């Protein structure tokens, strides 16, 4: 079903990674991405690969799920690999035609780049599989708290509120779009055939009703929020508090250790 698609895909489990504080998780994910980029040679990149693999195993999310995400990005991966094939320097020439040459250096480089992208995808999927969208939103709000001190107080709250409402209404709007599509099909609208231009044109009678109904929903929601004493987040408290625990410390220690090895390998080799 179309409406079962949610933004980010959470996989229910109670692993070490699931239990980590979402704020810590986001920061560590960013750190991990940085370290993967910092990994300048094959040894440090392989170490990164090993660490990412460890994260995936510990997350207790079936490996199949990660591969599913990878499939979507496969064309980009292949494209990068092919392009880099011709950019390698040094090594013996294996193939040469027109202005392009493929060297062993190129093969090395192509593999290196593809692996790097794959690791980035794995890391970000590990975050979305182990954290509910709501926790992610809350964590982002908390992490942006320092912005409040430079006069962006309402901006942080507004951003978080927007994300919450967007998450809430994605399934509702998808359902509505399906309904409108069926209604238009019942009146003889042809959505499946024709060229690109024709298909885009066929979408207009779906998008306009959807837009109008969204505006109506927004105004209803605004009224309902007002009735629930919403006044732009002034003095608002939260029911769910985030706590950092021992788990977070261990996970952070692991990441720091990994990071220092990457730096070490980069310097030594």
């Amino acid at each position, binding site marked *: 079903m179309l*409406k079962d698609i949610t933004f980010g895909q959470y996989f229910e489990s109670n692993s070490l990674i699931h239990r980590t504080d979402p704020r810590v998780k986001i920061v560590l994910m960013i750190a991990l991405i940085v370290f993967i980029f910092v990994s300048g040679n094959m040894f440090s990149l392989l170490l990164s690969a090993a660490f990412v693999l460890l994260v995936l195993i510990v997350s207790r999310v079936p490996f199949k799920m990660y591969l599913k995400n990878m499939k979507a990005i496969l064309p980009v991966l292949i494209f990068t690999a092919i392009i880099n094939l011709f950019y390698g320097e040094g090594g013996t020439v294996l193939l040469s035609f027109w202005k392009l040459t493929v060297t062993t250096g190129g093969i090395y480089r192509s593999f290196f780049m593809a692996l790097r992208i794959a690791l980035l995808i794995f890391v970000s999927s590990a975050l979305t599989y182990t954290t*509910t*969208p*709501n926790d992610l939103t809350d964590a982002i709000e908390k992490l942006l708290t320092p912005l409040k001190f430079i006069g962006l107080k309402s901006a942080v709250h507004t951003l978080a509120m927007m994300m*919450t*409402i967007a*998450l*809430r209404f994605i*399934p*509702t709007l998808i*359902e509505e779009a399906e309904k409108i599509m069926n209604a238009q099909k019942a009146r003889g609208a042809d959505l499946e055939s024709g060229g690109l231009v024709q298909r885009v044109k066929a979408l207009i009678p779906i998008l306009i009703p959807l837009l109008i109904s969204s505006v109506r*929903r927004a105004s*209803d*929601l605004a*009224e*309902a*929020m*007002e*009735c*629930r*004493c*919403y*006044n732009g987040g002034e*003095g*608002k*408290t*939260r*029911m*769910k*508090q985030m706590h950092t625990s021992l788990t977070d410390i261990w996970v952070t220690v692991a990441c720091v250790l990994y990071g220092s090895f990457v730096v070490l390998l980069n310097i030594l080799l």
Partner: protein
Amino acid sequence: MDNLIEVKNVTYEYTDEETVHTAVKNLSLNIKKGSFTVILGHNGSGKSTLAKMLNGLNKPTLGDILVDGINTKDEANELEVRRKVGMVFQNPDNQLVASIVEEDVAFGPENLGLEPSVIRQRVDEALKAVDMYEFRKSTPHRLSGGQKQRIAIAGIIAMQPLCLVLDEPTAMLDPKGRAEIVSTLIKLNHEKGITVILITHYMEEAEKADRVVVMNDGEIISDGAPSEIFKNVEQLKAVGLDVPQTTELLYNLQKNGFSVSTNVISIKEAACEIASALHSEEK
């Protein structure tokens, strides 16, 4: 009993393409604490406009509305009025803010700036009061219309209002969902003593109320106990409203010469009324 809401000679006007419409005309109404009032009226009778004035969402053009002694025109007490008079709307989808049930219910108390532990307790209580506690971790789009509307009600009672105003909360629901909402409201009224003002055009819902107010064209045309109101079948039909099926049946029997009275509503009472009429006929 004290009056919780006092509507004093209120008129509400709005401008639409330069013509002035009067949605509510010099209307006065007192709502008693702990009562269950149903406001009936067809579309455009001004009942929704009245509802939105009760918690200050709309401000009266003329006249005053006092909620627990506070004038709704008083900007400084706006939040206080909204907290005291909770409002539930027609479309359950457009009232829910968060994608997890308990987080949505927490939205109101969070806005009030309560302590996390207090919010937790209120959310749990509110969800239990509408029998949705086991769905607290669920997501609204997987629930039925009736369930979603009950979550919306829970979101309001978590703010511990004195009064609950519901503007056609059952209009978009199936019969099962409608029954769920009505029984929830009766339960809240009886067990928690929350004053309920239910705006509807379903007669079956009006039968359960202490008091029925019929509105037409921005004015109150009748006001009284359900059995009193439904007695005037002709008047109700004249303003485009139906009467409960039992009343309709008795009314038609009466018109055809049977000596039955039309001021009973429940099926059992109606059956007794018909039986006694038949008995006297035989004699």
